[in-house]
């Protein structure tokens, strides 16, 4: 391989030690990422908005997130009288568990992976949808109309965007010939972002919707629904929902990195450095979108999923399939530029004829 930094798949010894140590490591990794990313988000968005952002607690405001967590944990934990208490309690946990489960199959560097199952891609597609159930439960149980609307939007949006996302992943599986994530990463001598640019774009848009980020943050929509599904939450349970939101963003960036940016691969530096660097770039992209774009309306969002992303994802799958079956030995110097050109043409023609939802004026 390109990289001299690799460790054996069952590091640090036998299976059980591997399981234990890596589980702890992964949870610590996720939590650290979340705290860092909350800080980064606040600082970076502040820069986008011509202001400073938190800079009082600790150097560069680094301790701001920790201060916030302490504050939020000492808050009163309110459960609305008419809420469905059991569901209200377990919803944050149900929303959070799948995120940790996804992390189990992600290769952080060569060999550093909790478990390399041979249906990894399908596993991710299946497990990531469970978060939506947690969010839906939290919205439904809180006996609040805003939350209910948010919950309904969540389900509608998730079902719609799951399909183009999975179809974009199918293109990857087709090109890799395996569903195992370690082989998805090791196949990417050239990142799939270049090999399948159309799939990359579709996946980016779909993942933004999956993790409820702008322009698809209809579930929270704080200007319409006053925070949507988590309106009634407070204290520890709100902290968990907040954690869910940011871990979703981290996982989204990790998935973009693993599937399309070549995972941990890269010259010279250890794999984990490349991995975290690429995750950061993906996260920065998400922030960029968040601080620039207005929110779509629910019908426009649905229209985008079904009328634009779904056909494009099918076309992507078709093109990748054609290339894999008939032209497996085509030089990358030909295939990459050709596919990029095809992508640009397709996206522009779709943008021309399928605007996300402009209404006809004056009718």
């Amino acid at each position, binding site marked *: 391989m390109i990289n001299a930094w690799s460790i054996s798949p069952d590091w640090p010894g036998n299976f059980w030690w591997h399981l234990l140590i890596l589980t702890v490591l992964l949870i610590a990794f996720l939590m650290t990422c979340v705290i860092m990313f909350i800080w980064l988000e606040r600082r970076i*968005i502040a820069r*986008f*908005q*011509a*202001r400073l952002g938190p800079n009082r607690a600790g150097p560069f405001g680094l301790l701001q997130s920790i201060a916030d967590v302490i504050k939020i944990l000492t808050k009163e934990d309110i459960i609305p009288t008419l809420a469905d208490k059991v569901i209200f309690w377990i919803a944050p946990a149900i929303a959070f568990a799948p995120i940790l489960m996804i992390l189990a199959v992600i290769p952080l560097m060569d060999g550093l992976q909790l478990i390399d199952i041979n249906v990894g891609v399908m596993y991710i597609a299946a497990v990531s949808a469970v978060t939506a159930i947690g969010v839906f439960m939290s919205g439904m149980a809180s006996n609040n*109309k*805003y939350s209910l*609307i948010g919950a309904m939007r969540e389900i509608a949006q998730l079902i719609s965007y799951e399909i183009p996302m999975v179809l974009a992943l199918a293109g990857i599986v087709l090109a890799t010939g395996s569903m195992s994530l370690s082989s998805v990463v090791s196949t990417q001598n050239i990142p799939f972002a270049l090999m399948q640019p159309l799939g990359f774009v579709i996946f980016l848009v779909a993942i933004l919707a999956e993790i409820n980020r*702008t*322009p698809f*943050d*209809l579930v929270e*929509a*704080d*200007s*319409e629904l*006053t925070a949507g599904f988590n309106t009634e939450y407070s204290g520890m349970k709100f902290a968990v929902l907040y954690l869910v939101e940011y871990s979703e963003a981290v996982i989204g960036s990790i998935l973009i990195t693993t599937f399309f940016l070549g995972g941990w691969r890269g010259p010279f530096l250890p794999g984990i450095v490349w991995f975290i660097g690429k995750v950061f770039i993906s996260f920065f992209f998400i922030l960029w979108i*968040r*601080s*620039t*774009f*207005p*929110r*779509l*309306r*629910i*019908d*426009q969002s649905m229209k985008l999923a079904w009328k634009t992303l779904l056909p494009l994802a099918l076309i992507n799958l078709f093109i990748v399939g054609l290339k894999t079956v008939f032209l497996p030995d085509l030089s990358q110097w030909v295939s990459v530029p050709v596919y990029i050109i095809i992508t640009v043409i397709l996206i522009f023609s779709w*943008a021309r004829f399928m*605007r*996300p*939802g*402009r*209404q*006809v*004026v*004056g009718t």
Partner: protein
Amino acid sequence: MALATEQFILNLGPVHPSTHGVFRMRVTLDGEIIQDVDPIFGYLHRGVEKLFEQRTYKQNIPLSDRLDYVSAINNNWPYVMAVEQLAGIQVPQRAEYLRVIMGELQRIASHLLAVGSVMNDMGVFFTAFMYMFREREKIIDLLEMVTGQRLLYNYMRFGGVSQDIPTEFLPALTKFLKTMPGYLDEYDRMLAGNEILLARTKGIGVLKPQSAVNSSTSGPVLRGSGIKWDIRKAAPYSVYDRFEFDIPTGENGDCYDRYRVRMEEMRQSLRIIKQAMEQMPAGKEKTPTPLRLRPPAGETYAQIESPRGMLGCYLVSDGTEKPYRCHFRAPAFINLTVLRELLIGQKLADAIIIFGSIDLSMGEVDR
């Protein structure tokens, strides 16, 4: 098989991030589509008009600031004008120009806030809002330089303004006039070409010219529907007949046109300020008036074009030192009457934008 559905009644407000104050809409929803709206207001009612009757004429000036706290100077104006008409007080030329300059600065500040908060309602996580605030801050600095206040200025007096401009004001204003058009272009580049923004605002909340007139709306809401009506041109007050400026109008009367009208009005205001700066004569900023002013009995009406539309003040005097009755024609309140018509049939998410595009200030609506 048809599923049994039931209507969903949602209370938007009174405490809601996008109602700009405390306004409540009782919305009947069918899924996401609005079937009926019941606007409920009065949560910010302070009895301002009754308070006007309890105080002397001079004490009422700071109270008129509190009507529409976003454009305080423009709220002083009709009240002061009405009292001047009743008492026959002459305003020096310099004071008129100062009023125009400060009023137009206030108009820009108010429009910046209006446009920025609509963007915020649309979900641009505070970015546009912060950019607009950056420029609004400069305007407020300018106003602070003259009046010493940052929000409620208490600037106008009967027969003039409270104080003349300091020496450093004109250079600062010149610098502001030079830089502001560039920032306005920046907003246009950032916002007007954004596909999502166009999708969210074009064709949303269309107000037909006929119903705009029938409901006697005014300001950007009326001009967005394509009707060229601006008190500054239609019935010029102060020295507005000496300036050259255009009245921007929209074509379709949708949210996008109201946004365009506001952006264009800011440019026109810059033009007016520039001309006023050049024409401004030297002289006194105020004619002295008696401390306990007692206008002769009678009634009068004065109106100006505030950032939200036609702001009028109807004043009745019974010859004492307190007004007998003082009624304000609040443009935001009358523009609000078209809300129900605009909202029915739209989506819930549009309701927020339409509401924002009318640009209400609840202090003025409830009084």
